[in-house]
């Protein structure tokens, strides 16, 4: 008897809930069937008058049904909130732009510099730096370029009116100036890179600027050879460009290295088969490299022929230009936000 009554109530709920169209009606329905004064709660209150056997049986059924009704009501609630008129009221245009705070942008030189630093740090290189205003001695003499050396003409120099004591001062023309200073203070084996700002008194065009960034690598130890230079360079460039890069060395001349090389890498666009980007040369020119001249070692106080080492100096701009296909190196120092905000 009671059992059929409970099932009847559930049936009624299922029937009535179909007709419910808003949350107010649902609230009334919930009150009617599950409220404190509802018929159902009345049953539950009267359970105590039943025989123990029956009480257990009906009690279980009543509780189960109560939970089922609650589920039905909650389900309806969820449905209503999705489709109901209040949802309609709150509907917004989600295509309107959000309130951006705006994230800033690093100069591409910084990005490339970090890439380089991270790869070399991973290979156990220390990042070194030195002053950007150098004495004539460290910028030239210590690098096997004494006064009146014709090689000085290869690097047009900004000289300062001011002097350090009697010494002439220059805006450093190369990060190699740090080489001698570092070696004076450290004994081999050593592995450093020197990323930094350099200056040359050159006319500026799309590929030259009087201010530029170089990164120097220097390895000194016993038995360092040209094969090592090739390997370290190939490892670095392959990682930097995310593709296999081959290194090509051509003869060149720098006073601070002997032998000296022009340093090319296989074209990053065609991989070395020849294309427009490399002007069908299969290679891209990157900069100078070489085995450290023993005169440089002597100048910093190492014994001649006790060590060998290699060094190179490349332009950071060139790498950034290759990576991002930038066609004018003056953009890096332009300060133009239309440029910077692209990175």
């Amino acid at each position, binding site marked *: 008897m009671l059992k059929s009554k409970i099932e009847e109530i559930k049936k009624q709920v299922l029937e009535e809930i179909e007709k419910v169209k808003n949350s107010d009606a649902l609230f009334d329905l919930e009150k009617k069937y599950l409220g404190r004064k509802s018929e159902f709660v009345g049953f539950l209150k009267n359970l105590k008058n039943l025989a123990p056997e029956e009480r257990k049986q009906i009690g279980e059924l009543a509780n189960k049904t109560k939970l089922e009704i609650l589920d039905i009501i909650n389900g309806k609630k969820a449905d209503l909130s999705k489709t109901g008129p209040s949802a309609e009221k709150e509907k917004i245009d989600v295509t309107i732009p959000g309130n951006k*705070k*705006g*994230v*800033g*942008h*690093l100069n591409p*030189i910084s990005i490339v510099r*970090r890439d380089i*630093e991270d790869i070399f*740090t991973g290979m156990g*290189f*220390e*990042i*070194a*730096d030195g002053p*950007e205003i150098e004495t004539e001695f460290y910028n030239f003499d210590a690098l096997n370029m004494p006064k*009146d*050396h*014709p090689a000085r*003409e*290869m690097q047009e120099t*900004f*000289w*300062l*009116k*001011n002097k*350090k*004591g009697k010494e002439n001062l220059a*805006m450093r023309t190369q990060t190699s100036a740090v080489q001698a200073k570092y070696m004076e203070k450290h004994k081999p084996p050593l592995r450093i890179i020197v990323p930094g*700002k350099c*200056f040359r*008194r050159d006319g500026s065009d799309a590929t030259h600027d*009087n201010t530029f960034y170089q990164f120097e690598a220097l390895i000194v130890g016993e038995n360092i*050879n*040209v*094969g*090592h230079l*090739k*390997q370290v360079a*190939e490892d670095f460039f392959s990682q930097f460009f995310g593709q296999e890069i081959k*290194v*090509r*060395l*051509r*003869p*060149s*001349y720098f006073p601070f290295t*002997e*032998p*000296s*090389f022009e340093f090319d890498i296989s074209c990053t666009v065609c991989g070395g088969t020849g294309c427009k980007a490399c002007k069908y040369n299969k290679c891209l020119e990157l900069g100078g490299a070489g085995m450290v*001249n023993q005169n440089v070692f002597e100048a910093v106080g190492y014994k001649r*022929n006790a060590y*060998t080492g290699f060094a190179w100096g490349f332009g950071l701009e060139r790498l950034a230009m290759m990576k991002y296909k930038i066609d004018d190196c003056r953009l890096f*120092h332009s*300060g*133009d*936000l*239309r440029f910077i*905000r692209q990175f």
Partner: protein
Amino acid sequence: MKYSYNWLKELSDTKLSPEKAAELLTMHSFEIEGLEKNNASLDGVVVGEILEITKHPNADKLQIATVETRHASSRLQIVCGAPNIAVGQKVPVAVVGTKLSGGEIKEAEIRGVKSFGMLCAEDELGLGESHAGILILDKKAKVGEPVAKYLGGADDSVLEIKVLPDRAHDILSHVGVARELSVLEKKKFSYAFNELILPTKKSQKLKVEIKDKDLCKRYVGVVMENITIKESPRWLKDRLEICGLRPINNVVDATNYVMLELGQPLHAFDMEKVSSQGTRNKEQETNKLQNSKFKAQIIVRRAKNNEMLTLLDDSKIKLNESNLLITNGDDALALAGIMGGKDSGISENTKTIVLEAASFDAVNIRRTRTVLGLNTDSSYRFEKDLDPNLTEKAMVRVIDILEHIAGGKIEGIADIYPKKISPWTVRLDLEYANQLLGENVPLKELVSILNLLGIHTKYQIPASPAGRQNTKYSAIACTIPTYRLDLRTQEDLIEDIGRIWGYEKIVPRPMIAEVLPAKLNEQVFFERIIQDKLTGLGFDEMYNYSFYGADDLKKTGFSESEHLELANPMNPDQQFVRAKMTVNILKNVRENLKNFSCISIFEIGKRYMLKNGEPAEERNLILAKVLEKDSNSETFYNLKGTTEDLLEAFNIKNTQFLEIEKSSTILNPGRSAKIVVGGKAVGFVGEVSQMVCANYKISKHLAIAEINLEVLRDVAKNTLEYQPINKFPVVSRDISMIVPKDIKYAQIETLVKKTGGELVNNILLFDRFEAKNSMAIRIEMSAKDRTLESAEIDAVMEKIIPRLKNDLSVEVRK
């Protein structure tokens, strides 16, 4: 330098195509800057045969030629104004479509007669200046073939080589490059260089004396008589022109030719001018000569201070003791190694000449020509050092040529060579050579390369018996020919062995080294964090030049004395070295305001100063901010907030912003503050004064902040320690007040903290109405061990409020 490939071919006997040779040289020797077919501009100009000539019906001076070129389907009718044409002649014909220096040849109608091309004169082909008539070709020229084939420098190619300083002494010459080509082809160099030996006939007419043996290492003077000055033969002119030199007359051209061939600059004087004509010092020096048998003398000496000389190019120069002169005892004849004097040069009447082949000190030539601003083919070679033995070779060559083309006869030679340069020996350690290259170059190949280079080799055996068991030879004694001045150390030799053998044969090898962590560059990684925080806060990164101009000093009011200055700036805008980070960032703001209405930018870089008269550098951060809507002081507070955010990011808590007593010239003094952390000045934040903004045409409020990154890194070195989270509730009370004008917020905060004691955790300024001097603060209170009773809180507030009233005359509103 430009090289004629035909000339190189002649000297080296190479059979290689110019392209192949250029490739070989690029990979093994030096950079090739260009390879161009000579006369490439003559494409489209072909040999034509004149079949018929008729008078132009409407013009007396014009003729109509019918020409066979085998290019057009029929014979061409061409109107021509030159009188020198005749039937049967072979002439250059520019067919329709050919581009000459004067423009493209088009079909034309000349006085009513159609013309289909042009017969060319020398100047129209860019071969000379003559427009006297149509260039008549050799009768054997084949009709229809490119005319370039029958002209000077036909089928030649111009090779342009980037000559680096170490090889200038041998490579700035055709012989040098030809020798290099032979080495690369593994061929013995065929040019009879070693056989160029001076005759021993001593001059009876010329005496040479070197007063300054440090600056002139050798002077070979030769008297040649019976000279006829005239135009050079075509072959000689062609060679000079291909190499970019202008033909002048046979004597001058011959000296230039030999310079291009051997790299030794030569000079020719008129003998009459060498015989003293001067008036000064006549008593003293000319007398000396009169007593001797010689008719003329060359004295190489330093110039006297203020001595004057008129050069070949008509420029008058004033000299001093550091300049070296060629004189006749009285008068200066030439500025040694740089340029001849005007008065001593060859003229069309010259009959007897004195030829000079000398060797000068490179440093002295370089200094003199730099100071005087001269740059000649001669100085270009001398300033890079030359082998004194080359003078002899060059003299032999020029005598030979002049005998042929000027009818000259050698009278005799005066050769002064105080300190003869002989070949030197360099010991090459074989093991070291292979170790430096990283590959074992087969011994036979290694020695063969050295020998091809002209180096005499002699094996050395290991000193110890044990060593002898391991290798047969330990080293090679290399005798270097004097024409390779650059080969001084064994590394120099290893470079030549490596490049000629082929760097491409060197295999990449992993380095073997101890695994040691790299020392971390703290400054680099510290600055990365700054960059990351700032980009997170919406700031874009600038990179600026380290220079600015005098105009900027004027605009900002910064003084020149604080600045380092360039001795040779490229332009006045970059005369001073950056001592203030602010200057260039102002320009960044100005430029970007043209495209953007709000700007947040920063730069990390160095400023350069004088500290006790010496240069010093300091790494700094500069920030600049322009707001879209910038009412009153908002921009300042906005950027101040950024600096606070940044400092807090490094867990710096004890930051103070203090009024600046003596503010920077560019800041609004009422709106700038010094940033101090733990008593250390870290930087400043402030609004740029209206005047400076106006100077830079910035019409909005601009706030800037500068932070010394070395100091910041130092104060940021605190260790972070976790503070337990308070389990008890925080209660807050607000106070609204009217604050007298001269009382600063910092005073209120300090007083509240001090009076409130331990229970006050935090004070917030949550409302402010500047015009009425009203402020509202919220005081947050809690205890670490209990929930605060309201009586306790009231007690604190009752202490604070009277103190605010009494100490700071603040009016607290209920």
